[in-house]
């Protein structure tokens, strides 16, 4: 129970730190959003009413009025975010939350698909490599993974797009689905979405799978050398049961941390990946917002990407506690020196 409380607190703290950081950046950056909005309002207004216009624009776009006391500004900003109001996008003249609500599912779709394939694949491959340690398969895969692992995902994305889409015309060059397809649970729509997601997913999976597989391999090899496995064998526990219940489970558990860290890297990577594939997800919107200095949209995307990751990590953390009871009972000594 104490553990649950601790996790929950940490979740809340992280969310607040991120929101505060975002507020600080928006509010205090010289040449940042405030100056920009002021300039915009000046350009739009004639004379005289500039001041009210500035206040109005910033209230609408950023969620606080710059002439209110700081703590009031902060309070307004936070409550607006908590109520789902992320301001108005300057470039699109639309509520940021509406833009994000439309784009986020696509990014989630890409990420969930990639993560699933990557981790399931890595665990299976890693386990295989461990059982055939130093065999031909093992050494071969290790060197292939070393090269793939050294290639950033966006570079694989560029190469795939260049060869598979432009040169060979096997895959679509841009977009989330083919044009003129009604969204819905139709075979056509799902097929088209998967078809468009293939290259992005491949670029994430093949650059990420190696590191995880090698970690799984290491974990499994270590467990294969444990005494309790020998004891289990002597007691006549069937090899199948040993493989699944003893080796697999214990080797997969430490991967959870890896999973949580990967979650952040991948969601962050969406900014680059979606730009390359012209995939209109939240990352692409964030990039567009940056190039157009659309601060409300930029900060909105930043907040939502971060919140998505924080929530993902929180969920992973909770389920980790369910799978591995040692975590929630807090085994490690925390005596103060």
């Amino acid at each position, binding site marked *: 129970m104490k553990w649950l409380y601790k996790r929950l607190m940490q979740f809340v703290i*992280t969310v607040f730190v991120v929101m505060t950081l975002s507020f600080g*950046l928006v509010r205090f950056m010289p*040449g940042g959003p405030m100056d920009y909005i002021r300039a915009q309002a000046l350009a739009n207004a004639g004379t005289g009413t500039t001041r009210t216009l500035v206040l109005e624009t910033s209230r609408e776009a950023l969620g606080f009025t710059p002439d209110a006391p700081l703590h009031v500004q902060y309070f307004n900003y936070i409550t607006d975010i908590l109520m789902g109001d992320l301001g108005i996008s300057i470039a699109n003249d639309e509520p940021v939350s509406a833009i994000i609500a439309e784009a986020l599912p696509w990014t989630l779709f890409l990420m969930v698909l990639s993560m699933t394939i990557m981790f399931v694949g890595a665990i299976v491959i890693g386990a295989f490599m461990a059982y055939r340690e130093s065999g031909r398969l093992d050494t071969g895969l290790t060197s292939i993974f070393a090269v793939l692992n050294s290639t*950033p995902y966006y570079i694989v994305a560029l190469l795939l797009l260049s060869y598979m889409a432009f040169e060979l015309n096997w895959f679509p060059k841009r977009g989330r689905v083919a044009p003129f397809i009604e969204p819905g649970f139709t075979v056509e729509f799902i097929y088209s979405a998967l078809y468009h997601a293939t290259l992005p997913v491949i670029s994430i999976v093949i650059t990420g799978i190696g590191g995880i597989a090698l970690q799984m391999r290491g974990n499994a090899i270590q467990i294969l050398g444990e005494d309790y496995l020998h004891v289990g064998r002597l007691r006549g526990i069937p090899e199948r049961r040993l493989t699944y219940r003893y080796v697999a489970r214990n080797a997969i558990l430490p991967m959870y941390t890896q999973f949580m860290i990967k979650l952040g890297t991948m969601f962050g990577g969406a900014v680059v990946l979606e730009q390359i594939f012209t995939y209109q997800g939240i990352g692409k919107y964030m990039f567009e917002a940056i190039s157009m200095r659309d601060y409300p949209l930029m900060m909105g995307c930043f907040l939502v*990407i*971060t919140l998505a990751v924080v929530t993902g*990590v929180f969920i992973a953390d909770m389920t980790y506690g369910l799978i591995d009871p040692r975590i929630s009972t807090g085994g490690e*000594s925390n005596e103060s020196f």
Partner: protein
Amino acid sequence: MSRSEGSSPFTTVSDVELNDRERIARWLEQSVFAPARVLLSDWRGIVGALIVFAYILAGTVGVWLIPEPVQNQAPREAVWFQSMEYILGADHMGRSLVSLIVHGTPTILKMILAGAVFTTVMATTVGMLSGYKGGRVDTILSTVMDVFITIPGLPLVIVLATMFEPKNVYLIGILVTINTWAGLARSIRSQVLTIRGEYYVEVSRTMGVPIRTILKDDILPNILPYVFINFVLAGRRVIFSSVALYFLGILPRVGSHWGVILNTAYSNGALYTSSLRYWIIVPVATIVVLSYGLFILSQAADRLFNVRLRAKHESTSEETTGMPAD
């Protein structure tokens, strides 16, 4: 370290007296030569070190040998392997790609150095303190680490880069690894948690040795190989993120950078013109080879840390760490 058996450890004087020169020689042997021998006993260590050395050479000596990239030093968009003068081809302004790559190397190396030093120093300090001190200090530092771990790095870096527009190379190196230290600090912390229970640490503690000294002399030597591995890996992170940001055109340009070459190639349509593909492949290969070199170097360094693997290298291993042998 040998201690005479039998009598009380407090009354025993070391049977070997060392003068300064011997002490330096021993230090060199323990912390430079022995680890280097383990590193280079493996093909990965040799290849990795050679690759890294080659890039350092290109970034220092190469800059003197290869002419600076200037416009029209080669025909515009000259394809690679056509002439010895611009062997890797040229960009849309007739700048030789070899010149662009070589003169972009110092920038990258400085960024790697800044980012990797920042990450490892930060992570080691916070991780050791948190793991050793325990109690409230640990609770606070752990929360800070967890917050930093969960905030996705790239969007944060992008937001900071657009707002601050850093112009200093070292600052950019630090910026792109702004939250990498947290993950490393976490794993250092959990290692220190096991080390702090060791008897020799307990002895230092009971003797009233100040925390600084305990951390420096008793704890740090144990995690140093691990820190080294992650120094190298942090360097990789710097390459990946800085190239991505320059490719997207988010960071303000300071000198030439491999990511800038990618960016110009991309915006000049090298992606869908097969005759221009060399323009993408050259910077890509440059990035991948260095990153590969750093990766296999870190793998070779794993032996310094991983006791199970090190068991195969008995001859040098006894000298490399301060771990007491049973």
